[in-house]
């Protein structure tokens, strides 16, 4: 008897080229369209004096080109030591990235362990879960100064306090998704494990964890960007000047004079977030072996 192979049809090289070209075009087209929309809205609303949904002027909506131009000027309000704004912002981004990476690693590890522990004992899960949820309803801006002050008395570097705040935002999605993922193993797959007389740890390692990986990575993608938000917000009350948070505070004060600097800062912060996200996507590609349609 011959085996009938029903393999996924291999992509034709031409088709693949066409598709990647399409994706490249889209990658360029989307920012261009956004640019057009921004400038179009600005032009129309300023010229016609429209006020709905909101009125704009030179200050609320600077030209996109001006924002980019500001990146390559010396900043008007901060002493950059003669550096251009982009150099200053990239250095700040690096500083914030350090806080965010440490926070992300800390939060993801804690979230993962919490998820694993809670998945093992239903009773624990019932008791703890409401408090874990409650932890996230506390506004981070209210917690941040407390963390900074408290850790400050322990002689911890200020940037590490900020990392802890970033971890606070990171752990939650990871914990919830790990828990959910570990419990999503198929009933028959569990019965199969039972028929092999597998112990709890073996089931966890060989079945539940691999099943949970796509869930965990979905959460890591959310957390990767949340950790940057956490780091930026953590910098605000802690008096740290070296990160993006500090820059946002300063440029916000000078917004009336030069709005482009704050917008440029946002741009860099967004780029940092995208980088974090892409790193997680790359890690997922390397780690998760799953049918393409089952990838989260």
């Amino acid at each position, binding site marked *: *008897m011959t*085996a009938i192979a029903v*393999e996924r049809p291999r992509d034709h090289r031409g088709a693949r080229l066409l598709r990647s070209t399409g994706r490249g075009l889209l990658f360029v087209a989307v920012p261009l369209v956004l640019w057009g929309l921004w400038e179009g809205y600005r032009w129309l609303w300023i010229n016609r004096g429209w006020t709905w949904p909101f009125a704009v002027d030179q200050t609320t909506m600077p030209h996109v080109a001006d924002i980019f131009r500001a990146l390559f000027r010396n900043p008007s309000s901060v002493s950059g030591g003669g550096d251009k704004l982009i150099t200053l912002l990239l250095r700040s981004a690096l500083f914030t990235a350090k806080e965010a990476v440490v926070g992300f690693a800390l939060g993801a590890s804690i979230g993962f362990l919490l998820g694993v522990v809670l998945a093992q004992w239903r009773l624990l899960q019932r008791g703890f879960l409401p408090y874990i949820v409650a932890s996230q309803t506390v506004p981070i801006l209210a917690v941040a100064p407390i963390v900074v002050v408290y850790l400050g008395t322990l002689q911890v570097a200020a940037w590490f306090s900020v990392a802890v705040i970033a971890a606070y935002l990171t752990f939650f999605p990871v914990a919830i998704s790990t828990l959910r993922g570990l419990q999503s193993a198929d009933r028959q797959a569990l019965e199969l494990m039972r028929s*092999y007389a597998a112990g709890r740890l073996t089931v966890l390692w060989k079945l539940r964890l691999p099943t949970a990986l796509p869930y965990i990575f979905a959460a890591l993608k959310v957390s990767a960007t949340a950790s940057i938000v956490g780091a930026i917000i953590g910098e605000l009350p802690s008096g740290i000047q070296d990160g993006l948070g500090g820059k946002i505070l300063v440029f916000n004060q000078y917004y009336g004079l030069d709005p482009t600097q704050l917008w440029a800062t946002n741009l860099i912060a967004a780029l940092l977030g995208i980088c974090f996200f892409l790193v997680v996507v790359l890690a997922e590609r390397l780690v998760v*072996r799953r049918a393409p349609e089952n990838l989260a």
Partner: protein
Amino acid sequence: MSVVKIEGVSKEFRGGTIALTDVDLEIEAGEFVSLIGPSGCGKSTLLRVLGDLIEPTRGTVTVNGKTARRARRDRDYGIVFQDPVLYDWRTVARNIALPLEMAGWSRQKRADRVKEMLALVELAQFERHHPWQLSGGMQQRVSIARALSFDPALLLMDEPFGALDEMTRERLNMELLRIWERSNCTVVFVTHSIAEAVFLSTRVVVMSPRPGRISDLVAIDLPQPRTAATREEPRFFELVTQVREALHLGADLDSRRPTQARA
């Protein structure tokens, strides 16, 4: 020697559903026994009780002179479900090796056995594929290879070909018989196809619902080995008729149901 001895087994689920009442069944070594019956007759439940996946409310199950629990701990069961239940993140070869890893086989022994099993189910060139790259029939063959990889005394199959098309099903029937002849294991096979049960089995256990029970046993005396021609022999049709009548008799005894099910 009887491999399986089921005595007075009843199963009542929480909520009061009675899935099985007072089932007695003995299965000899090397037999191929099919459990057949309409849905709700408890055939899958009986298989699960036998494999110690669920516990009976009353009664005992003895496998090779041991309790079902002991037998499960000793890895006496190979199980094939209706879904192949392959692990997406493992290649075909590593899926087959899974029970061997659990049993603590060395890497070399595992590799040798996997090679043997791949040859047995004729999937040698697919060892590096992932499950989602295979057709449904191929996936089910991997699942069978995995179940047989550690030489279990008893192969439990729960409607393994139920989700496949008729052509693939008949082909896999032939292949299963070939594998069974070579491995000398005992097979308990749940199905709702009369032709499949008669073609494969040495004995057909006819079950009826509400409450689930055994209503008849039909010995299948078709000569071995069975071939495609077996399905065309007069004796095959006689036995199919016999099993069908036994099924309807069981259904007629079911007082809450009119006797219209003559499909």
